[in-house]
């Protein structure tokens, strides 16, 4: 029977510190916030060793606690900086479309094989940098949806928004990310008319 007796808190920092930190970093995009949440996770785990069932590994259990801390962090950010009308405007850069809704200058051809891109560390770095450039509400919504894979109902609760507003937020987040990647990574190419 596995239980909390199998836990070894004295080894946690060395064994899981970097792993949990990277996990938090990808989602929070902020070094000191990520460090704080790793610390909070270990402290919560230490106090609540009884919740370790032994059915999962120590690291899975710790990540589970960290996930809750991350959701709490997003909840707090949403409370401190509630949505403004500006967050819900469909496009921060209305010049993408003309008055009748046509592209003014459409997306460029990104070319190549996307499967190659995922292996390029520089592309992944650029991606996370573009994500960091979004407003916190947009970046958090995108992170919950696409990195955490949460469903929209859960995200609405965390960010305290209606589903309709969430769709707008995610639309804007994707649109801005796309534009950022196009400008900073694929920028070498230029689009041609339809």
């Amino acid at each position, binding site marked *: 029977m596995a239980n909390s007796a199998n836990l070894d*808190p*004295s080894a*946690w*920092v*060395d064994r899981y*510190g*970097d*792993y949990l*930190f*990277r*996990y938090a*970093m*990808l989602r929070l995009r902020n070094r000191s916030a990520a*460090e704080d949440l*790793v*610390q909070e996770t*270990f*402290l919560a785990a*230490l*106090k609540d060793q009884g919740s370790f069932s032994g059915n999962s590994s120590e690291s899975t259990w710790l990540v589970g606690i960290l996930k809750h801390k991350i959701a709490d962090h997003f909840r707090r950010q949403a409370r401190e900086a509630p949505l403004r009308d500006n967050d819900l405007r*469909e*496009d921060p850069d209305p010049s*993408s*479309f003309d008055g*009748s*809704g*046509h*592209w003014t200058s*459409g*997306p*460029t*051809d*990104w070319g190549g094989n*996307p499967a190659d*891109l*995922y292996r390029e*560390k520089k*592309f*992944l*770095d650029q*991606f*996370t940098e573009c994500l960091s450039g979004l407003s916190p509400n947009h970046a958090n919504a*995108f992170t919950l949806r*696409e*990195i*955490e*894979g949460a469903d*929209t109902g859960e995200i609405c609760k965390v960010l305290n928004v209606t*589903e309709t507003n*969430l*769709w707008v937020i*995610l*639309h804007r987040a*994707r*649109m801005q*990310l*796309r534009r950022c*990647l*196009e400008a900073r990574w694929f920028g070498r190419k230029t689009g041609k008319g*339809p």
Partner: protein
Amino acid sequence: MVRKKNGEGALMLSCKDVTRLLSESMDRSLPLGKRVGVRLHLLICKFCSRYEKQLLLIRETARRLAAMEDACGSPTGESLSEEAKERIRISLATP
């Protein structure tokens, strides 16, 4: 394209409408009329087709990033600073 006033307008979506609906379709299943309208538009619009492919690439990249972080030996190579590790060790030892 200009949206028609009547219910058949879904078949005449603008590029701006389509970009919004493409994103929305990644978060919920669209009503049939809108789904058909988007598909028809994509058949004739090179830019919106590109836009769709690029959104899917963005989604896939986010998933890969998550999967890589889950596997040990993350490619991003970030790690806790020694100071942070020490601080956490101390806080764990003195609850």
